[in-house]
């Protein structure tokens, strides 16, 4: 980056806007989830704070901030402090490599609408998504509570079930765009989104990132019916809030990734690019909420079975077929 003050100002504005937008979106996703779940279950949901309950997220934040910050006496104090940050920050960082709109030109300065255009954006995502699980594992272990420990162990079991198929489902995307850079991947889908050529990879990726979100039907580390709240049972106040907001940032980020890898990123007819990107991302968020209202929870041996015996061989097979077809057409 050059030291041009206009460029620096534009970058700072972009960073602030992204940070603010992602956090606000995460807060309103919680609200949207409660309203949509209520609607699915034929009840009203939160509708008292402000018009249509729209100020509910603000009330939630105030409530979390004014709660007592408890650290269990037997907890491993520093790891207990570290875990919520380990869960929330990697999710936010992944967002920095997602292009959320076409580059803007303001007063002769081009502003790419992503925070960091890494040439290894895809690998950056895979690396950070593996780090995020440490938040669950460390939080579960540090709490020194049996429910939390079981939740943390399940978090690890879950990671080794879905991560392989998630990584393998992205190999065809790399083959077709011949780049790890998110910008190049989006550019390669200018005429046709990859979902058209790679429906199987898309489905494998979709199932894997649902597991990555740790939500129903894969919310085993949390499993409120069996483990109280799983890995964050012992967390209260704003520390719980960080875990919680991390989960919703994760949904937004993974929705954005699904859009970038398979749905053509910000490309789309008529509407402005940022709007298209938002529609695709929020469609994924809605799907997550809808699934929560519809599906039961899997057992974790069932999840391992799904990951290892169905998704992984399918993904490998898909790579072979893609390689063969690309070879025939070139």
């Amino acid at each position, binding site marked *: 980056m050059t030291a041009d003050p206009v460029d620096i100002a534009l970058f700072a504005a972009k960073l602030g806007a992204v*940070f603010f937008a992602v956090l606000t979106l995460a807060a309103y996703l919680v609200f949207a989830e409660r309203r949509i779940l209520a609607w699915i279950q034929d009840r009203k949901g939160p509708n008292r704070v402000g018009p249509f309950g729209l100020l509910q997220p603000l009330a939630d934040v105030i409530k979390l901030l004014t*709660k007592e910050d408890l650290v269990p006496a037997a907890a491993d104090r520093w790891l207990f402090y570290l875990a919520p940050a380990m869960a929330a920050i990697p999710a936010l960082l992944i967002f920095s490599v997602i292009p959320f709109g076409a580059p803007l030109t303001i007063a002769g300065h081009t502003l790419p609408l992503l925070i*960091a255009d890494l040439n290894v954006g895809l*690998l950056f995502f895979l690396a950070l998504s593996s780090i995020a699980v440490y938040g669950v594992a460390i939080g579960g272990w540090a709490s020194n509570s049996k429910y939390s420990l079981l939740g943390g162990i399940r978090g690890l079991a879950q990671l080794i079930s879905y991560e392989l198929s998630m990584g393998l489902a992205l190999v065809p995307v790399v083959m077709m765009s011949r780049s790890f850079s998110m910008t190049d991947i989006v550019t390669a889908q200018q005429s046709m989104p990859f979902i058209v050529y790679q429906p199987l990879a898309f489905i494998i990726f979709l199932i894997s990132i649902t597991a990555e979100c740790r939500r129903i039907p894969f919310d085993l580390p949390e499993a409120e019916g069996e483990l109280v709240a799983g890995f964050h049972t012992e967390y209260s106040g704003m520390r719980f*809030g960080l875990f919680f907001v991390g989960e919703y940032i994760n949904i937004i980020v993974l929705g954005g990734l699904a859009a970038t890898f398979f749905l053509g990123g910000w490309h789309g007819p008529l509407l402005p690019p940022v709007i298209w990107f938002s529609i695709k991302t929020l469609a994924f968020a809605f799907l997550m909420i809808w699934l929560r209202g519809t599906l039961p929870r899997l057992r974790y041996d069932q999840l391992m079975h799904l990951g290892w015996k169905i998704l992984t061989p399918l993904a490998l097979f898909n790579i072979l077929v893609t390689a063969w077809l690309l*070879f025939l057409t070139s």
Partner: protein
Amino acid sequence: MLGAYLPILLLVIVAIAFGLVSLTFSSLIGPKKKSALKLSPYESGCEPVGTARDRFSIKFYLIAMLFILFDIEAVFLYPWAILYKKLGVFGLVEMGLFIVILFVGYIYVWKKGALEWE
């Protein structure tokens, strides 16, 4: 080269600052009425039994080890996927062989029962 990572470093700083500010704020205005019972681990309202630091068998340790092996093999697929067009027939045959060998190992593991639970 490393300059591309500078924006990410800035985002890390902003994110950590946000976390620290909200946690500090919360610990300043939140109530502080601690008691021994409140600080004991939650066990559905009963007196906690034993400790959570007991050892117990993790059934999936074998799968965890296999995961590392297969994940490393998956990593080899990425450079090939980038250079796929340049490598031509050679790349296709080589990687085809690699994936077939991977499959043989996978079927061996499956038939040995390493992916089963009991």
